[in-house]
């Protein structure tokens, strides 16, 4: 793209762009909203009767509401006189819903009172005569209609023209780009056709350094596929940061009946929207993280294999930490949410020891489990076996706080925590928690309370990964499993001819790797219980000459994975590494199943991007694989994914 001066700091650029973004609020709506708010308290004070603005607009008693009347009518005059500064808004609202009309508010007022007032205002408006623009709805329905009439909401003609211009610029610029500075795959993407590419790519990639990778059998790289020649660059990296929201964004988009735009849902984020059962660090392991890897045949290509790298963090008992008393208040009405909570707790409690204790209360404060040693994890989890929703968890919270306070007083030197989990409705945060940290976890779709009042933390938990993170950080006060974690994969050119990271857009999302391992501070914190999953599609160096699936890549390792991190509470970094042997496809059945599921998710992600290099493998195959490899799936999220794949298939018009 041609951006003349990319600012050094993206945050500065964002600040500037954000400063310019908001339009001035519509004066009419502003006056109306304020008038309506005033009418909410006016009857008591006698300062202003409820239908203040409506009456003021009808000309009744201007002396009693000079300000709002002036504002409202001034606004109307202004709107009537000025041309609409945003032509595309009219265009977007092709249903005739663009001109602002301060008199019509009915669409959005929440309560019946608001609706009544709105209706009155509308009844009054026509009396103002012909100068009033045609009535327009500003309600949610209307905004939805506006949005729907322009399917993507932000693809205006201007945008399309801009995109076309940009494409022209790219096409013009591509041939004059100096070759040495442009990586091979970028050139492939820029020049956009593969007939001219193969020779150029061959000449650009001296393969002399590759011990056993003759260039001849290499198939041409599909443009933009993100493939890398191992001989050219053997090191790759990926992010360890949690990537939330991809799945819900995708669900929303599909629910609107829209096939997501390419790149809207990065495969990397989609894969990591699921928590996988990768091997966890053992109970007496020194490291808080564990690396694992396995290989499976690529579902969509018999010539390649999928390398899965998994990282899982665990909570580690911190030396010298005071004993902890945890009071858990459970107000859960569904099995799925119980399973979420159990999964999170199971992981988080690994950070606790025999000196810590846990008690469980029900929604009304009834004791489900008196304080027991945190070493009895099974007993605690068994208490959370059946749903017990209450009418309100407020009592449970008060009882929990009282119990935590008592336990803390009984055992001097201990710290106390209260965690309340609800899938019904979260109570309000207590005004004073007596210095006891309180976490309110809303499971599933639970509305979060107004965090304005009270002490504590409120978190929404809608996935096993989120449950693990929320619980572990509630327990350990934000202590992470490891800080500044960075990962790097080095492929062996002797066994791997090409690889590609099944990530964001296949165009270089894996470029974070180079040099990252050496420089401190470039990594991210890994929370206890967090899993990170990365998939690479690799082409064995000996494949491509007619040998099909399962072709043995030969002896020797495929790759070496290095993970550098600083353990919580230590400043010095440590390095752990894992050799991935060519035969990493055997052994752990659970890991293989999980890898297959991850492959289904990644493949789905690639299909969403409209990639055509998956051959005949399509949505139906992705859904089938997702169902076959879902495993126990206590939260039902994996079954959901299969359903989403079906929806996407229907929307894409592909045969099921």
């Amino acid at each position: 793209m041609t951006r003349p001066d990319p600012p050094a700091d993206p945050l500065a650029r964002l600040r500037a762009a954000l400063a310019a973004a908001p339009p001035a609020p519509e004066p009419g709506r502003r006056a109306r909203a304020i008038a309506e708010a005033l009418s909410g308290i006016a009857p008591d004070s006698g300062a202003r009767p409820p239908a203040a603005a409506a009456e003021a607009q009808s000309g009744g008693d201007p002396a009693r509401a000079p300000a709002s009347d002036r504002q409202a009518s001034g606004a109307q005059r202004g709107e009537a006189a000025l041309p609409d500064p945003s032509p595309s808004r009219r265009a977007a609202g092709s249903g005739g819903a663009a001109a602002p009309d301060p008199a019509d508010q009915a669409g959005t007022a929440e309560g019946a009172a608001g609706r009544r007032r709105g209706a009155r205002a509308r009844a009054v408006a026509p009396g103002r005569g012909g100068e009033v623009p045609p009535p327009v709805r500003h309600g949610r329905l209307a905004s939805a209609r506006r949005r729907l009439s322009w399917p993507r909401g932000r693809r205006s003609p201007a945008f399309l023209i801009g995109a076309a211009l940009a494409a022209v610029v790219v096409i013009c610029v591509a041939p004059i780009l100096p070759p040495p500075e442009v990586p091979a795959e970028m050139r492939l993407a820029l020049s956009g056709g593969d007939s001219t590419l193969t020779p150029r790519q061959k000449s650009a990639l001296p393969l002399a350094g590759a011990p056993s990778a003759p260039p001849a059998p290499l198939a041409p790289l599909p443009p933009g596929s993100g493939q890398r020649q191992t001989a050219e660059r053997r090191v790759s990296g990926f992010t360890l940061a949690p990537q939330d929201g991809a799945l819900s964004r995708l669900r929303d988009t599909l629910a609107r009946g829209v096939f997501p735009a390419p790149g809207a849902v990065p495969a990397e984020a989609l894969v990591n929207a699921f928590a996988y059962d990768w091997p966890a660090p053992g109970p007496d392991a020194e490291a808080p993280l564990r690396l694992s890897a396995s290989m499976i045949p690529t579902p969509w290509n018999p010539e390649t294999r999928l390398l899965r790298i998994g990282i899982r963090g665990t909570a580690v008992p911190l030396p010298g930490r005071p004993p902890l008393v945890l009071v858990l208040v459970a107000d859960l009405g569904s099995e799925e949410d119980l399973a979420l909570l159990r999964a999170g707790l199971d992981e988080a409690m690994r950070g606790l020891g025999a000196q810590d204790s846990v008690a469980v209360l029900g929604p009304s404060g009834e004791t489900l489990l008196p304080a027991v040693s945190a070493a009895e994890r099974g007993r605690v989890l068994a208490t959370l076996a059946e749903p017990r929703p209450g009418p309100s968890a407020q009592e449970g919270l008060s009882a929990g706080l009282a119990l935590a306070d008592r336990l803390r007083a009984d055992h001097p030197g201990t710290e106390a925590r209260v965690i309340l989990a609800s899938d019904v409705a979260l109570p309000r945060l207590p005004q004073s928690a007596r210095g006891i940290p309180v976490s309110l976890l809303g499971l599933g779709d639970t509305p979060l309370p107004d965090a304005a009042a009270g002490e504590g933390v409120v978190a929404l938990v809608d996935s096993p990964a989120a449950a693990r993170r929320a619980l572990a950080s509630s327990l350990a006060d934000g202590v992470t499993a490891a800080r500044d974690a960075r990962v790097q994969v080095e492929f062996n050119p002797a066994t791997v001819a090409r690889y590609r990271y099944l990530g964001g857009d296949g165009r270089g999302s894996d470029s974070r790797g180079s040099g990252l391992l050496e420089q401190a501070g470039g990594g991210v914190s890994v929370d206890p219980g967090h899993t990170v999953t990365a998939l690479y599609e690799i082409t064995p160096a000996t494949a491509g000459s007619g040998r099909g699936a399962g072709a043995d890549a030969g002896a020797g390792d495929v790759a070496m994975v290095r993970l550098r991190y600083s353990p919580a509470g230590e400043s010095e970094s440590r390095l752990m590494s894992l050799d991935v042997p060519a035969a990493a496809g055997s052994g752990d059945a659970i890991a293989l199943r999980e890898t297959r599921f991850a492959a289904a998710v990644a493949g789905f992600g690639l299909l969403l991007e409209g990639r055509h290099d998956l051959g005949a493998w399509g949505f139906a195959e992705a859904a089938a694989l997702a169902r076959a490899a879902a495993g126990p799936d206590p939260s039902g999220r994996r079954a959901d994914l299969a359903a989403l794949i079906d929806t996407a298939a229907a929307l894409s018009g592909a045969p099921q």
Partner: protein
Amino acid sequence: MDPDDDTLATAAREGDAAALGALLERHYDRMFRLGYRILGNRADAEDLVQEICLALPRRLVGYRAEARFTTWLHRVVLNAARDHMRRAATRAKASAGWGEAEHLARAEAEGRAEEARWLEAAMSALSPALRETVALVLGEDMTHAEAAAALGLSEGTVSWRLSEVRRLLRDLAREEETA
């Protein structure tokens, strides 16, 4: 001299309509701006602020003058915006992205279409939590500590979120260059 926010809020809580009116006049634009920067859509932002205005007399009862009024108000807007997004999501009507046709058209008229497009891509790439943080720190020019107070988070979390935003934007820029 104008009375300060706390005086007005306290009076408004007691049912003084004039005080509430003054308070809303003073802060309406701020609420709208914040709502817009989080939701990325004018109609939604206006709906949002209207709802907040309607509910404010009731909410003021919970205002304790312990935090600064604007901090409290920011929290109210943030919570309302979260509710708004959640409701929109369950009704399957919300666009997941940030931005709208009107925004681009306006930007085009002002000769900053490129930045506007970049902004839409950038904001769409951010999770709601990051968007909120960005709207407060970059949009409202708050310090990390002020934003932390409004978000009910620790200052460290806000700083971490911003570094996360920086990382995401760098990635975006890299993809853009490669595109």
